[in-house]
């Protein structure tokens, strides 16, 4: 279950007498503070501090504990991540510790009084280095004016509390998987024997971190969703400890049904894209009707235009015919003057205009092109007459006429060129038609053979094209740095050669590079863009396209081979050419559920070269070297598991099995979980502080200054009251 913080400001600070100690459980994950003698701590919050900058004012503020992320939007949190006062399980950052203590005392309601006038019992780690201890004492005495201070180990308090509850006996073992470290402490006669204690630097933090990394690597696209807090929630909800890791892993590997049951999926919020419903029947009908009407209107307009144009042309034609008839009646000499009114200069012009008008009329009426060609040829012939001067020999012409003649020659040649091009085009078309015709005939006579041939050709061509593409791609896209052996492309080889020779310092002789223009072409060859340039579409590719289209037409079973881009795609890459479905947004927790907590028992899975929980128990008993079998039996008979990570399901069975393996056969083993693994430490401390012997255990400021550091190092709390 997720831990919640309670940071309500307490109002009854002044109600407590100065004798009542304040009890602080200073853990690497949570900070718990409260009054001695009570059952629960008053204030609980996450033991982290953030120092973001306020966006508007620019001042740096301090935020203690975890807070509503929406409020943090007013602050610029980029340069300030959450920071902890702890390094492993030892407090070293006392500035942060001060902020945390400030916050804690403030929420206890102390703001308003002169100093913290109560004795303080604070927890620390096992065998805390004296440097940390003294700095903590200094902080409490100097800054807060605390009269007396006592230090204790949280795991010991937890054990004592459970001993009182009857969960465990006076002699026993406390196994405490914490946030950053795991301890095993033997208890003899109710007192912890630190000589026999054992510490491994693996804790809940490492489990969460491992889970976070694994999920981010497995689902790189959803990496943003895996925040630390979210992953911690996932861990608390879904992780468990398998009784036998290998068996469980094999279960998942074979894909048995039990594995399916044990797999949990987390559906990320995902909104399916809105599928536009196909327009309904009525819509379609309505749209079709509108289109029809529009088409009709357009057709009518076109008709009207055409008919009016035809009318015009007919009129013109008639006029011209009339004119021509008139011309025939008129004498030769009178033609120019006669024609002045109409705007035509000579009889030929009139005739030409007449022919053109007739042509246009026929086109407007929509007659087949065959006749048109004939008419065009006729018009071509008539153009010959336009160049009358060409055939006249040079000597007979005046200079002006010569110029005229040259112009006409030029025009005629261009005309002829145009005609020749037209001719060629016509021939090509006929040729293509003929080929298609032949193809059809071949297909009709033997469809199967034709199909096979076509398929074969398709395969060949696609192979060739792909190979070329692959060469080009491999040459350009080498993973990471390009090494000597990976320059497969000839162009790349050439380029590299040029680069090395160009960079090579030509010692002797004059450097004549650049004296000729062609030298600068070298840079063009060196540039990488050159490789990408392709001279248009390869003839192979063009043919391939043709064959594909042909096959698609005639063969219903033909499926063009999709070009596979590059090496095989990784299994967890989201392919882009299909719409994202719900499954893409699901996080599957299968093996990770029991793989991550496994590091408590096998720290070498994360590279920490130390023994795991079950072996630690054995090491601890060994270190104790008590010698008597009886004591050892008593120790294993009452093993208490406490600390935040004790909540993992399956830890009890696993520990039992593990310890059974290392102890001599037949020893009685019983493992219990503490009644409340998280709060028991604080409760034990609170109970201890409320006893009247506590006053003798705490040391005052005077003691601290007089007795010095050595004494502080030897200071140990007595747990048996």
């Amino acid at each position, binding site marked *: 279950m997720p831990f919640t913080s309670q940071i309500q400001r307490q109002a009854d600070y002044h109600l407590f007498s100065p004798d009542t100690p304040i009890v602080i459980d200073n853990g690497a994950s949570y900070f718990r503070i409260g009054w001695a003698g009570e059952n629960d701590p008053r204030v609980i919050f996450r033991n982290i501090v953030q120092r973001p900058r306020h966006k508007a004012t620019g001042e740096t503020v301090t935020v203690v504990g975890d807070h509503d992320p929406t409020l943090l939007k007013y602050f610029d949190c980029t340069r300030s991540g959450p920071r902890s006062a702890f390094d492993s399980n030892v407090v070293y950052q006392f500035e942060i510790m*001060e902020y945390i203590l400030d916050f804690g005392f403030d929420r206890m309601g102390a703001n308003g009084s002169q100093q913290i006038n109560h004795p303080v019992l604070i927890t620390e780690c096992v065998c805390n280095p004296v*440097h940390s201890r003294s700095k903590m004492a200094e902080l409490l005495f100097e800054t807060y004016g605390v009269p007396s201070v006592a230090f204790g180990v949280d795991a010991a308090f937890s054990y004592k509390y459970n001993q009182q509850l009857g969960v465990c006996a006076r002699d026993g073992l406390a196994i405490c998987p914490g946030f950053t470290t795991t301890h095993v402490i033997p208890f003899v006669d109710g007192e912890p024997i630190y000589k026999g204690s054992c510490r491994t630097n693996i804790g809940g933090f490492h489990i969460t971190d491992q889970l976070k990394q694994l999920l981010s690597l497995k689902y790189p696209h959803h990496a943003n969703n895996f925040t630390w807090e979210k992953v911690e929630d996932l861990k608390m909800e879904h992780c468990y400890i398998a009784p036998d890791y290998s068996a469980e892993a094999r279960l998942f590997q074979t894909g048995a049904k039990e594995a399916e049951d044990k797999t949990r999926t987390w559906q990320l919020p995902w909104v399916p894209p809105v599928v536009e419903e196909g327009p309904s029947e009525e819509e379609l009908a309505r749209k079709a009707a509108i289109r029809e009407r529009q088409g009709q209107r357009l057709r009518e307009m076109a008709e009207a235009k055409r008919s009016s144009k035809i009318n015009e042309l007919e009129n013109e034609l008639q006029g011209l015919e009339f004119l021509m008839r008139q011309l025939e009646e008129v004498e030769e000499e009178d033609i120019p003057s006669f024609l002045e009114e109409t705007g035509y200069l000579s009889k030929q012009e009139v005739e030409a205009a007449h022919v053109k008008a007739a042509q246009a009329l026929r086109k407007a009426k929509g007659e087949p092109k065959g006749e048109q060609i004939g008419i065009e040829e006729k018009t071509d012939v008539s153009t010959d007459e336009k160049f009358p001067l060409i055939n006249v020999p040079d000597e007979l012409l005046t200079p002006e006429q010569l110029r005229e003649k040259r112009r006409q020659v030029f025009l005629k040649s261009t005309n002829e060129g145009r005609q020749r091009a037209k001719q060629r085009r016509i021939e090509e078309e006929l040729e293509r038609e003929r080929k298609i015709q032949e193809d059809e005939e071949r297909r009709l006579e033997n469809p199967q053979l034709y199909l096979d041939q076509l398929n074969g050709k398709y395969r060949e061509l696609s192979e060739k094209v792909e190979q070329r593409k692959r060469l080009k791609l491999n040459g350009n896209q080498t993973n990471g740095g390009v090494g000597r052996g990976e320059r497969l492309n000839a162009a790349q080889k050439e380029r590299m050669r040029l680069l090395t020779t160009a960079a090579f310092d030509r010692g002797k002789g004059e450097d004549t590079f650049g004296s000729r223009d062609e030298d600068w072409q070298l840079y063009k060859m060196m540039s990488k863009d050159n490789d990408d340039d392709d001279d248009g579409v390869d003839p192979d590719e063009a043919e391939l396209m043709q064959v594909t289209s042909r096959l698609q037409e005639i063969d219903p079973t033909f499926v063009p081979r999709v070009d596979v881009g590059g090496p095989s795609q990784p299994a967890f890459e989201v392919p882009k050419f299909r719409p994202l479905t719900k499954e893409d947004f699901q996080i599957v927790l299968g093996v990770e559920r029991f793989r991550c907590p496994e590091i408590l028992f096998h720290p070498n899975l994360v590279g920490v070269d130390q023994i795991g929980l079950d072996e630690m128990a054995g090491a601890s008993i060994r270190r104790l070297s008590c010698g008597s079998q009886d004591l050892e039996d008593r120790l294993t008979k009452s093993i208490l598991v406490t600390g935040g990570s004790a909540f993992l399901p399956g830890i009890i069975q696993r520990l039992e099995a593990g310890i059974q393996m290392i102890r001599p056969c037949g020893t009685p083993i019983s493992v219990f979980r503490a009644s409340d693994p998280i709060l028991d430490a604080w409760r034990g401390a609170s109970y201890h502080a409320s006893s009247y012997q506590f006053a003798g255990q705490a040391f005052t400021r005077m003691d601290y200054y007089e007795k010095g550091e050595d004494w502080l190092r030897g200071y140990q709390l007595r747990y048996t009251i």
Partner: protein
Amino acid sequence: MEAEVMEAELVLPTHFSFKMAQSYEKYPKGQSSARRFKHLKQIIQAEDFNRYLPDEPNYVNIESPPPLHPCKRICDITGYEAPYVDPRTKLRYANTEVFKIIRSLPNDHVHRYLSLRNAAVILK
């Protein structure tokens, strides 16, 4: 400060009556706190635990020894048992499908998988 921030009391006040020396006096702006305090490694070095008797428990004494059993070899990607190691990337894998996946991983992912196991080679 915005109203809702004030209401939620998000920010730690700078002055407390119960403190004899306030934070802003003790830690003037400018000096980075990171350099002011010794890290655990430095604390351990400074304390020189060799001075003390080997019998007495101290912070360094009570560390766990390395394990006697051979370490468990599990696949880096899937978590199954992994008898094989990829010679190029040094990742452990369980079967051929996983091997295909390993060979198509970007360099960055390979490094991260290795650092999970504390086996990544960091080039400086």
